[in-house]
């Protein structure tokens, strides 16, 4: 059974909390969010570098596997506010 715990440990220690309504790991201070699928499908190294990636914008940085439509991205940012 592949364990999620190694990846979630990375997210926990970087201050990300799983939101089951959005199915995303969210850090409000860093203004970054990772979809569950993104965490599930990518190796730890990719997740670690995504966590490290600085958010230079004042806006939310959202990581998903599939590209989002503009409307979807706007809606996610709206509900995360």
């Amino acid at each position, binding site marked *: *059974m*592949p*364990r*999620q*715990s190694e990846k*979630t440990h990375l997210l926990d220690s970087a201050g990300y909390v*799983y*939101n*089951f*309504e*959005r*199915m*995303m790991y969210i850090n409000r201070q860093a203004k970054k*969010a990772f*979809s*569950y699928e993104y965490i*599930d499908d990518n190796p730890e190294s990719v997740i670690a570098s995504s966590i490290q990636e600085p958010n230079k914008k004042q806006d939310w940085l*959202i990581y*998903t596997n*599939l590209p*989002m*439509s*503009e*409307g*979807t991205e*706007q*809606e*996610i940012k709206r*509900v*995360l506010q």
Partner: protein
Amino acid sequence: MAERTIEDQLREQYVTLLPELTRVAEHLKTQIEYFLLPIARHLKPHESLLVKARVKDCNSAIDKLRRGNPGGVFDRNHPEIYNLLSLRDLVGVRVMAFPSGRAMEVDRLLRLEFGDWIADPIRDGTGKQLAFKYNGQYTQSPMHWIRSLAADLAFKYRRYTESVEDIPCEYQIVSTLIGLFWDIEHAAIYKQAPNLKGLEPVMREQTYAVYLALKAFEDEFERQIQISESSTHD
């Protein structure tokens, strides 16, 4: 006047579809029960076969569509892309069989009747198959059902009237123990609060532990029955 939301639009579609969904669920259940009579008639006292049908409830259906998008949100700029008929499990029938050897027999028998439905087996975290699952479509007829050998991969029943609407359905075959666990897990937890459905992925390891325990119980039970039967025949 308040703006009409995507949820409003989908609720209206649900209410319109509901009578047809209910009829299709009953029809599919009855059909499956009929096809399974050769097995049901010969069950041993400790064996069981249970067929249950359900129509996905309105909130769960809308919630599932919403969850199909990143972040679990609707794209409010494009309400036209959302349609409840895109959900493959709007109508579902679950066959629960005990012991698991009976589930295999059920699958073989139903494949003879639903050979063109698309297989989509349910697997646990290790890729092991937990249940058989097949998807197809019905086109409902108020008067009678005409089976058409249409080119698509499903049974099709042409409507008596002019309008034709395909209803997506699925049937699953699962061991009784796991099926009953799903009943509790889904009905008692997620159905009361569809927003808790997002807990499912993070509960994966614990859920897998339950499957292992139930499978071990079932395997040992079957082994003991076999030992007992072979000693009776000696």
